């Protein structure tokens, strides 16, 4: 599903943020990605959602070698990946509903199917009363939930969530974790970057820890 071989990443002439990272994630697995602030979690995820190419090394994703992929193939590949960005990246002038509907519309879904589906999901994350609110009128946690809904609306094969619970209370955090686990049960491979040690501790999923540019794997409670 995801394979890194000796991957390194540096920005411009700076030091390597990631160095010599190798790992492999099975399809349908669920991992936390942890590390101190500035360790490179978001950078690693950006390699996975094809926003950046590594400075060196090989990445295989959804059975495709990213080094050889052509530009015209990117959209199809990206549509199978859902991303919750750390800073949400909602479009300011679109309502919550339109923001969440975006990946469906971009993929050419029929409008009548889009609406019902989006409303259901937004209601599930507790935003049934804010369907037509613009991001500027939403609270921090509400924006975060819109971002999460947008990432999962297409039931992607791979879900990447960057600090998806930084702005919500513990109750909602647990609820969102359940959402991710539900998707995971249906076959989605999930990677969640987080500082929320409580969340990581409460679950049984393995942890990928970034430290000084190196990645180490930590199993928990006997899970793979």
């Amino acid at each position, binding site marked *: 599903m995801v394979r890194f071989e000796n991957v390194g990443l540096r920005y411009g002439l700076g030091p390597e943020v990631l160095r010599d990272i190798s790992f492999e994630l099975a399809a349908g697995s669920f991992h936390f990605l942890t590390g101190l602030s500035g360790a490179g979690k978001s950078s690693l995820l950006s390699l996975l*959602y094809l926003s*950046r190419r590594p400075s060196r090394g090989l990445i295989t994703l959804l059975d495709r070698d990213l080094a050889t992929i052509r530009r015209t193939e990117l959209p199809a590949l*990206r549509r199978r990946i859902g991303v919750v960005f750390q800073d949400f990246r909602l*479009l300011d*002038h*679109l309502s919550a509903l*339109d923001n969440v509907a975006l990946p469906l519309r*971009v993929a050419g879904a029929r409008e009548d199917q889009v609406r019902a589906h989006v409303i259901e999901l937004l209601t599930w994350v507790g935003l049934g009363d804010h369907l037509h609110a613009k991001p500027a009128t939403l609270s921090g946690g509400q924006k975060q939930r819109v971002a999460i809904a947008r990432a999962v609306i297409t039931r992607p094969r791979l879900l990447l969530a960057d600090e998806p619970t930084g702005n919500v209370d513990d109750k909602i955090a647990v609820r969102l974790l359940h959402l991710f686990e539900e998707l995971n049960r249906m076959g989605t491979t999930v990677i969640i970057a987080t500082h929320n040690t409580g969340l990581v501790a409460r679950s049984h999923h393995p942890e990928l820890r970034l430290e000084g540019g190196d990645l180490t794997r930590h199993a928990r409670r006997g899970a793979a």
Partner: protein
Amino acid sequence: MRQRLAGLARRDLALARSDRRSYVPGIVAVLVFLATLALVLALTLAGAAGRFQAGLSGTLTVEIPVPAGGQAGEARLARALEVLRQTPGIAAADPLSREHIAGLLEPWLGKFAGLEDLPLPQLIDVRLAPGATVDLAALGARLETAAPGTNVDDHRRWLVSLQRLARLAVGLAVLIVVLVAAAAAAAVAFATRAGLSVHHDAVDLLHLIGAEDRYIARQFAHEALILAFKGGLAGLVAAVAILAAIAFAATRLDAVPLPAFGLTGGDIALVAALPLAAAAIATVTAWRTTMRALARMV
């Protein structure tokens, strides 16, 4: 179909809002204004030249100069008229009156008292039978023997310069229209590139969500179409208003505006198509600019 239309009008990018400060409509308005004026004036000139040419081409003018050696003017005129009326293909030959000729000269000589005493040349207005051709060289030779010094003018010099003028006007108009089209394309390309940089983050997000370049380019093209069409329409309306005012002033109070410029239905269609052409150019330019710029992104 509704689905498709919704797709065409999609505005994920807040282009419209940021383009309230766009200079595209203003520039396109000015350009279409200029193009309309240029085109209408050129078409008018070409039309007038065509009609004038049609009016001239069946006529000749014969000039009998001021007598040099004291030969009686009247006798020479009569002999010339006789020759002309015997020539096959000539439908009519009428001498112009002395007053008429003096009137033609007045703009150059001014009205001064000595005019009556000035010796004036005599002119004969000749109309050919429809479709007839006349051998000018032979006619000239016969007139020379009948009345030495006689001069036949088939207006060819006039016709040639009229044609040259009309061609020049049309050429200039075409040049202006081409320049205008190029300027419009450049303005739209510039605005599109600026828009891409302003909306860089949103464009980037659409890419990451799996949008194809076409999906994004369509929004820029759609926006350019609307802006250019609005501007173009404004420019056309302004130009037509100015032309109507000119036509009105020219014909005082009893004129229907456009026919005063003698435009045909085709001409009017051509002029009315300018905003559409501007919109088309803008759309294609914005599309191409966006596609090319996006291809350079990851």
